[in-house]
């Protein structure tokens, strides 16, 4: 498969009164043409920041890309001048946000909000923009698109609003669609519809999707490959089946086992991951997860784990993969470690 976007060692820091906070600390992943990758992790792990950094949406006075490359169409997005970046946004790379209610302008008609992107990037007359807007509304499943174009945000339901967001993002036929928790604010039934919509759209347009989510159900349904993020780093990545059936990082395992299951005995309590993520003002010297990890070794607290290649695409950063460490399964029986 053709490589579309290569993120290599991305580092993002925010300026705060207490000093810089290192939200993203060296994230690398590759997005291929027509595939869907998921970035998962708990709140504050840097997944949204990673997404916004690809779009370069974080205002300069708030946060900065301090390292790494983001190669797209032979250009490094991290170095691209703002003016060229504006040409990319919405036309080559689009983004969908979590809550369509607050992410769409309440005082501008839906039609205008869809059309302004078309007019901006394709430089076509309004009539042509209108035709395209009608077409895209139809594609995302909104009935009577012609009359709906004149309406405003408050006249749509939650699921419809998210469909409109998707329409706005897709209308200029971008190569990459970044969806930042697109289903989190929706009812479960609507969630399923929206996920199916993503799949339909991908089949029809061949767009590559980066799905940012903490919902593993969504990941299982839509993603080809998964990147698990923790404290600003990708700790494990691999094909979706590998991650779900053969997780190697204790954090991934923890995420999976904290997910409620329909077939589980309801008397058995959920098993959350104890503790809280580390302070990113002063990230720990070793593995960031060590403090919460029940398999943690001494080496975990002192040194960053290297990436270990397992199989062709499964990569994990964990000291347990070191030949000298105990295996995860054996470690499970004696969780005290060495």
């Amino acid at each position, binding site marked *: 498969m053709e490589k579309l976007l290569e993120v290599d060692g991305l580092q993002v820091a925010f300026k705060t009164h207490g000093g810089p906070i290192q939200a993203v600390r060296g994230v690398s992943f590759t997005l291929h043409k027509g595939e869907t990758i998921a970035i998962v992790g708990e709140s504050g792990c840097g997944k949204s920041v990673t997404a916004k950094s690809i*779009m370069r*949406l974080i205002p300069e006075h708030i946060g900065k890309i301090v390292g790494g490359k983001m190669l797209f169409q032979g250009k490094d997005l991290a170095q691209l001048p703002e003016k060229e970046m*504006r*040409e*990319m*946004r*919405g*036309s080559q790379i*689009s*983004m969908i*946000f979590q*809550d369509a209610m*607050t*992410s*769409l*302008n*309440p*005082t*501008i*008609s839906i039609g205008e909000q869809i059309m*302004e*992107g078309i007019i*901006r*990037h394709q430089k076509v007359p309004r009539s042509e923009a209108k035709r395209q807007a009608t077409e895209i509304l139809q594609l995302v499943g909104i009935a009577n698109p012609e009359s709906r174009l004149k309406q*405003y945000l*408050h*006249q*749509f*339901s939650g699921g419809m609003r998210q469909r409109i*967001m998707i329409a*706005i*993002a897709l209308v200029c036929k971008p190569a990459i669609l970044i969806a930042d928790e697109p289903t989190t604010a929706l009812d479960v039934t609507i969630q399923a519809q929206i996920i199916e919509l993503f799949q339909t759209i991908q089949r029809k347009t061949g767009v590559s999707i980066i799905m940012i989510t903490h919902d593993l159900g969504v990941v299982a349904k839509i993603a080809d490959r998964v990147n698990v993020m923790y404290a600003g780093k990708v700790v494990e990545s691999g094909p979706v089946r590998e991650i779900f059936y053969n997780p190697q990082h204790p954090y991934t395992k923890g995420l999976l086992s904290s997910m409620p299951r329909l077939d589980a005995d309801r008397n058995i309590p959920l098993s959350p991951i104890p503790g809280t993520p580390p302070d990113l003002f002063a990230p720990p010297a070793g593995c960031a997860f060590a403090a919460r990890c029940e398999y943690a070794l001494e080496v975990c607290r002192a040194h960053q784990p290297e990436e270990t290649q397992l199989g062709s695409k499964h990569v994990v950063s964990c000291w347990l993969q070191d030949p000298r460490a105990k295996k995860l399964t054996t470690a499970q029986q004696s969780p005290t470690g060495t």
Partner: protein
Amino acid sequence: MLSFILRRFVSMIVTLWLIITLTFFLMHAAPGNPFEKEGKGLPDAVAANLNAFYNLDKPLIVQYGLYLQNLVKFDLGPSIANSSDSVNKIIARGFPVSFQLGLVAILFAIVTGIALGVVAALRHNRLIDYVAMVIAVIGISVPSFVLASLLIKYLAVEWKLFPTATWGTWQHVVLPALALAFSPIAIIARLTRTNMLEVLTAEYIETARAKGLSPATIVFKHALRNAILPVVTLLGALIANILTGSFVIEKIFAIPGMGKYFVAGINNRDYSVIMGTTVFYSTLLIFMMFVVDVLYSIIDPRIKFHGKEREG
């Protein structure tokens, strides 16, 4: 929409009637009468004749009825202090002048106020922001008559840029309009800045940026529209502010507008002039409030005249 306008119209009439009634009885409750100046009364026979001519000899409630009767015919009656003038004529003479001055002041206030507020918000916590806000604080705290005197002293007397007073050319409009507009500018600028700062952090601004729109489009199309909504709400009050302020300013600059006649009317206890100008200004203000309401719903489509257009 039509039923909204009708309902508003009825409530406007009721409001106006209340104002007329209150002013009428309060005015008559004040001691003295138009023909009595500093204790020097007219001969009884003359006073009786005058009173009879202006219906002042009838019981108050009958006078009130007669006044309303004439008002419905848009007849505001003759001026008592100057019987050759009718109140209608006074308004026809004075209002165009006041209107010009008020309009210039309001437009100037809106344009400058919003511009200052937007610039301050876009350059948040930088020099221009501080400068704009210092101007705003001065504008809010300095009364217009003090400012008017300062403007006359410096811009007119010392630097001779504009005429000191009276009315005629466009140069005559500048200083009084500036004096009138200054505090509204300050209020609008502060409000615009606060709202703009809030709107600029809204998520739909991020969406607009994600579409690749230029900063100018984002500010003027997506942010400003939402940021000036509260300013529009305030507009009604500001117009009232400028109207009442103009009484004083017109006096200072010797402008032959409504204010001059209103103040003179009160000094002379000229009942029909007091009533006429009050009725006229009240009507104007009430109508302005109505215009502001309509404007509001044009800018923000979520505000409908009736709440039934939501769908799920």
